[in-house]
């Protein structure tokens, strides 16, 4: 069994536009999670920094050179550190994104279950709210 999740996606947009969307605080907060974020190596970021019932995620920027963005991913209330890596590549149709979330083997079994439960209670709400927000904003 693999201990990481890998995703690939092609966006029909220029590479800089995609890079901005994943690396600029305001943009991340629009489509992803409310963020306190700077794409600078060593910066300690927080996701859901103002969320009332949302599970917080934080970590440190490991690498932020166009077009690779790597940060650690620590879920509030757990000690285990996982890593999220975004890599962009220019392709004919636009921009190809490689996303890798690794490090599940760092979790102890019980922690993984606790984390899952805390997400069920908190984080899913935030994602749903985000989807609603996007729908509302772009309804017209």
């Amino acid at each position, binding site marked *: *069994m693999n201990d990481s999740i890998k995703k690939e*996606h092609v*966006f029909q947009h220029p590479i800089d536009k995609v890079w901005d969307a994943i690396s600029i605080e305001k943009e991340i907060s629009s*489509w992803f999670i409310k963020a306190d974020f700077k794409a600078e190596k060593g910066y300690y970021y927080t996701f859901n920094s103002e969320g009332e019932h949302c599970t917080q995620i934080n970590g440190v920027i490991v690498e932020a050179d166009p077009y690779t963005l790597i940060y650690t991913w620590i879920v509030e209330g757990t000690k285990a550190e996982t890593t999220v890596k975004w890599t962009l590549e220019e392709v004919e149709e636009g921009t190809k994104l490689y996303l890798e979330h690794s490090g599940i*083997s760092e*979790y102890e*079994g019980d922690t993984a279950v606790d984390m899952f439960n805390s997400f069920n209670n908190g984080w899913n709400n935030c994602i749903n709210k985000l989807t609603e927000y996007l729908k509302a904003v772009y309804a017209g």
Partner: protein
Amino acid sequence: MQDKITKILKAIADPTRREIFHALIIATTALPITQLSNQFVISRQGVTKHLKTLEEAGLIVISNQGRERYCHANAKPLQEINQWLKFYEQFWDTSLKNLSSYLDKKI
């Protein structure tokens, strides 16, 4: 780091151990180690070694009944990993969909 999930991943990384585990899952009941060993071409000693790794990962339970040692499968630890992966699979799918529509609408 030899924590629980690392042990589980290590235990199921080996094809023979997966076969042994699978045989026990199918049996649905505790099997004597002697009977289990007969199903495999490797030596009983080899099977015992694999069983120990599976036991350390919590994937099987070994118990003594009289002179014979019995083992049965416990799939619960696998469910824990599966839950984690399933959650993030869905999470990232949703997020990338959001990113995609965000980029489409962005001027």
